[in-house]
């Protein structure tokens, strides 16, 4: 261990207070694990704690957070009359702050259809059914910009997705996927993000793989990354055939992974490398 020098086994002790337009806001980036995880771990940590100093610093001030550019782009889209009859998001929903609290409880089951809904699904039902447009590409820029804007409205609120009732079967399915060892490398999400969190896999400091910070601004891509995209990347890295963004499997996985972060703050647009 001494030989690797830079290897740090633990998440960095630090506090995330963000300078926002409305003043400083302190986020919960570490807290006790939700009940369903207490057999496995005591504490949950945002991925923010596993990043280098300069990456962590970029998230402390909205002025330095490169993800905010995409939020601005989404505000334009929110206000633009773009439906076939000139509808805009703002026309029906007023300001984006009307979406406060939503990010913290998604994914969740729609009581009418019984379907598990991601934020992307809600947005696309308005885009198609209420505005008469072609669905936005699930991992496209328009969609990710809007995810960033809507998520930001819940910044600071604790993630609190339901896992019981109608959500239970989806949650169970997501959990099964989380523990399945996929691909030629035979690795599960848990192998990396539960068994080995805090360790170095080559140059990468393994976090708990939480999604409270998503969508995230990823320095490596110089752009936004949604949780569905992150799942694709992680499964691909096991030399596996991935599931598609928005597939039933990855929707269930998103619910399960979100539930592992119940209690952490929504970070809105986080910064990761």
């Amino acid at each position: 261990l001494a030989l690797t020098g830079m290897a740090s086994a633990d998440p960095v002790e630090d506090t995330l207070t963000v300078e926002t337009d409305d003043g400083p806001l302190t986020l919960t980036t570490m807290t006790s694990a939700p009940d369903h995880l207490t057999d496995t771990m005591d504490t949950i940590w945002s991925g923010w704690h596993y990043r280098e100093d300069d990456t962590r610093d970029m998230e402390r001030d909205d002025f330095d957070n490169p993800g905010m550019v995409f939020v601005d782009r989404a505000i334009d889209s929110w206000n633009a009359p773009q439906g076939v009859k000139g509808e805009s998001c703002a026309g029906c929903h007023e300001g984006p702050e009307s979406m406060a609290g939503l990010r913290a409880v998604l994914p969740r089951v729609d009581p009418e259809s019984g379907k598990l809904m991601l934020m992307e699904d809600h947005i696309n039902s308005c885009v198609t059914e209420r505005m008469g447009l072609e669905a936005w590409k699930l991992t496209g820029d328009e969609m990710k910009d809007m995810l960033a804007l809507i998520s930001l409205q819940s910044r600071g609120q604790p993630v609190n997705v339901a896992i019981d009732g109608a959500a239970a079967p989806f949650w169970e399915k997501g959990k099964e996927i989380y523990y399945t060892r996929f691909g030629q490398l035979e690795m599960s999400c848990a192998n990396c993000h539960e068994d080995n969190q805090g360790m170095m896999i080559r140059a990468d400091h393994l976090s708990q793989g939480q999604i409270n910070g998503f969508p995230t601004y990823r320095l490596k891509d110089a752009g936004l990354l949604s949780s569905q995209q992150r799942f694709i990347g992680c499964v691909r890295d096991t030399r596996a055939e991935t599931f598609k963004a928005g597939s039933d499997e990855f929707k269930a996985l998103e619910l399960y992974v979100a539930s592992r972060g119940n209690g952490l703050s929504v970070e809105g647009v986080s910064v990761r490398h």
Partner: protein
Amino acid sequence: MTRRLWSAALAALCAATPVASETAPKDVAFHEGAVEAPLSGAPGNPEAGVTVMTTNALGNCVACHTVAALPDVQFPGNIAPALDGVADRYSEAQLRGIVANAKMTFEGSFMPAFYKTDGFIRPGDGFTGKAAEGELPPILNAQQIEDVVAYLTTLKE
């Protein structure tokens, strides 16, 4: 289309005629995790073994292991035990078994099986994220396994 068929036929032909005296992944005999017989006809080359161990697209052993004898490797991982002195802890046959399929030695190991071609869930075509087509090649070929084993047997303390 024709080109695809042709290359598929070629692949089938290659699969049907393995290099003489090479043991196919399915035919490897494990005894308590160890593999006595070399997998290829030629002896292992330790230098080539180092290349396999430190190249991302090949063994990438250093993603998880440190090796004090390889100080030039940048940012080795620390998930797995340091490989220093492994030759004191294991015989050549045991090392061959661990590299070919570590799960035969360490039940449920996180270490990938480098000479195994079936029994996977949703195997992909390398790192493309697409489904594997046809028979999956092992991550390392027989000679690469022997090269790695040859290097590991030099790691004495």
